[in-house]
């Protein structure tokens, strides 16, 4: 292509659209043909044609851009491919998988960490997002500005500037968050006890999980021996392996703007008539929420749950951004995908990394399937 790159991609795009239309119609015809052979009704055949034709863009894209690379990845997972060696991959069968499942404490602890982050972070994210959405749904002045502020973290993403700002905020001594905690603790003694209590409990739980992932509980003993924290203790956020996971959770909650947006639109979707009728019956805010809003929000909760679950199980960015310069703290918070990235792009063992990604995929599939199976109990679609 001798054209300049802008024309080149526009040209390719037009070709692609043509390609998609052709394959869609083709796929639809094929599906209808099969349906006719099987003896389906005319209506059914038409639906089959439409269904496949409309879904074809995704299906074709899946075949080209997912299946082919997945095929490579699958093949590599059975080899010892190291991209930096000048040798072609050697077939080693199930060795990678065997080592991964039975002989890799690093991977195991990454699973523990990921499960912790998901079990703690996801409910918090959904709860905070829901809470913020409900708050913003009240008519307040400047609500557009507030909405923007809460969505800002998503817009900013996790770049170096954001990282710097977070480092400032999370510093143990002078960071804003701890200064707030300190100020509140000195002003109200009960809060001081609450603060120290929470710190103690958090450190115990964290040490417990670290012990589970490493098999040794020395840290747990030490935390217990140290006893109830002194009066000047504050959370250590990014400076202690006991707090690394909480700081990641904090970052996760900070970025819950997308979920909040979905809840907001869901809340808006609820017909006013329902709320008005409840007002006539004398319902208070609590009942408004739990009897009307929440049940009608369940499809959105489900969406956020599934997408959030998958995102949490795949968590990588917040950990990388917070801890890439503090290597000693990484093992305490390493997630499955971080472990995958480390194997593939630091050790350059693409073969082993591919095996890791398949195992991760299976784990996520299992967890998601369970979610789907129990959804029938609590999710109600309006009129479907």
């Amino acid at each position, binding site marked *: 292509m001798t054209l300049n790159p802008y024309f080149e991609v526009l040209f390719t795009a037009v070709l692609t659209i043509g390609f998609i239309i052709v394959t869609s119609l083709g796929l639809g015809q094929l599906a209808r043909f099969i349906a006719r052979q099987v003896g389906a009704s005319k209506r059914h055949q038409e639906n089959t044609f439409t269904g496949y034709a409309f879904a074809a863009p995704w299906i074709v894209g899946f075949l080209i851009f997912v299946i082919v690379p997945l095929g490579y990845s699958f093949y590599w997972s059975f080899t010892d491919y190291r*991209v930096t060696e000048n040798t072609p991959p050697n077939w080693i069968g199930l060795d990678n998988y065997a080592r991964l499942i039975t002989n890799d404490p690093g991977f195991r602890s990454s699973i523990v960490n990921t499960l912790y982050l998901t079990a703690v972070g996801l409910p918090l994210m959904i709860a905070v997002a829901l809470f913020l959405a409900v708050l913003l749904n009240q008519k307040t002045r400047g609500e557009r500005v507030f909405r923007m502020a809460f969505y800002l973290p998503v817009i900013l993403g996790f770049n170096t500037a954001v990282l710097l700002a977070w480092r400032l905020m999370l510093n143990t001594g002078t960071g804003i968050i701890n200064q707030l905690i300190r100020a509140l603790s000195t002003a109200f003694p009960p809060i001081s006890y609450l603060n120290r209590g929470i710190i103690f409990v958090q450190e115990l739980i964290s040490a417990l999980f670290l012990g589970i992932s490493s098999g040794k509980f020395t840290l747990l003993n030490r935390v217990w021996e140290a006893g109830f924290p002194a009066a000047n203790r*504050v959370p250590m956020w990014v400076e202690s392996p006991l707090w690394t996971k909480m700081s990641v959770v904090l970052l996760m909650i900070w970025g819950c703007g997308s979920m909040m947006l979905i809840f907001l639109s869901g809340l808006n979707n609820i017909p006013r008539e329902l709320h008005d009728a409840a007002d006539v019956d004398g319902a208070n805010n609590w009942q408004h929420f739990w009897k009307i809003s929440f049940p009608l929000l369940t499809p959105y909760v489900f969406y956020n749950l599934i997408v959030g679950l998958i995102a949490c199980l795949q968590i990588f960015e917040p950990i990388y951004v917070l801890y890439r310069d503090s290597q000693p703290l990484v093992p305490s918070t390493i997630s499955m995908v971080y472990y995958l990235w480390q194997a593939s792009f630091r*050790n350059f063992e693409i073969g082993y990394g591919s095996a890791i990604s398949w195992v991760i995929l299976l784990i996520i599939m299992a967890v998601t399937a369970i979610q789907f199976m129990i959804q029938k109990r609590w999710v109600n679609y309006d009129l479907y």
Partner: protein
Amino acid sequence: MRTKIFILLILTSVLFSACASPTPTQAPAEATTVPEPAAAEPVTLKIYLLDYTPDTIAWLKSDINPAFEAAHPGVTVEITEGSWSGWDTTFAGFFAAGEGPDIINLGSEMNTLYGPSLADMEQYLGAAAWPDISNFGPALENAKFEGKLRGLPIFTAPRYVFCRTDLAVGSLPPKNFADWVAFAKANTTIDAATNSLTQQALVPVDAGSMADWQWWLLVYYSLGGQLYKADGTPNFDSPEALATTQFMLDMRQATYGPAADAVGALPAGQGSVIDINDETAANNGAVCLAHSGWAAPAFDRPVWENISIEPFYGDPANFPNSKPVVLAFNDWLAVADYSKHKDLAADWLKMAFTKEANHKWNETMSLIPSRNDAQYGYVTDSPQLKKEAELASKYGVGFAGIAEAAKLSVIMQEALGKLITEELTPAEVNAQIQEQYLIALGK
């Protein structure tokens, strides 16, 4: 409505790109172009850079590339300005696809990582082919794999111990481990109200844990420690290794106290930790800094009158083999083995690494040239750079030749992390590193 806006946007972008000057896009267009009807097949030499400033690129494009293209008609040089974020994924792509830039900018310890996939350049750049090679300093070792040259080092970025002579209590610099621990105790202040440090005696690479693996290696080398035994197995069970790990623990506890105290680190901020705040005249908190020059204040700051630059002296009291060490990170340009133009690559390298060129390249980045004879001008004009260059040539030890460097870093960081939290004793830490590293190497 929105669709209309987007269509309008696309149309305008098409118009803009049609009007936009085609010059910036000509280089890539030519690279992917069907060969023009010329006598020779046009060839593009692709170079992927990570260590540069806008001035570096401007100079390369105005001086080096035109000269090279004049000497090699039909060859175009294409420089890609990459960034250190995402380099690993990018490089993985190149080598997996077996296609990509001919010359790649690598980091110091990557010679063992990419070694097998890099071209043996001895026949082009070795002493027999290019006598100039003898002018390169110790940094040249970083550019070798299995004894063969694979490229050329650009600069040397060693790590020194910078100390504030006006703040330090006690004699400077501490010359053995016991002195360092005493120094740490005497020069560290903890604020009871916030339970964090307000002054830290020594800030090594990682201020919080004070147990970064690169720092550990620096201390180890200063004791005369060797990373591998004669048979190639790791040497973490040596007495030097034990002393190093113990030193890490002692220094950390002399600074932060026992782990249970949960003392917080210095306040975060921008700018160097050993500098002084212009407005408040308050110190940034560190008395000594063991890091690269770029973590130290800018050279024109007045605080330099009170900063000494020293190597790390090891522990001659207990280890007679101790020597002062300055751990040097030497980034370099390597030639990929998949390159079809190794000879052209060599020629370009020779042009970009003459005495004047190496000097100019580093001048644009304020770093120390890898060639000894290029260390003039701005290097000797600045007292700090002059001292740094001297120390580097006397005591420089390259950060290279580490097998499975990435895995070792993970292994060491994990174990050293447990040292800080007192989960493992120094002996246990070293045993764990030794065991895991053996497995990693055995693969």
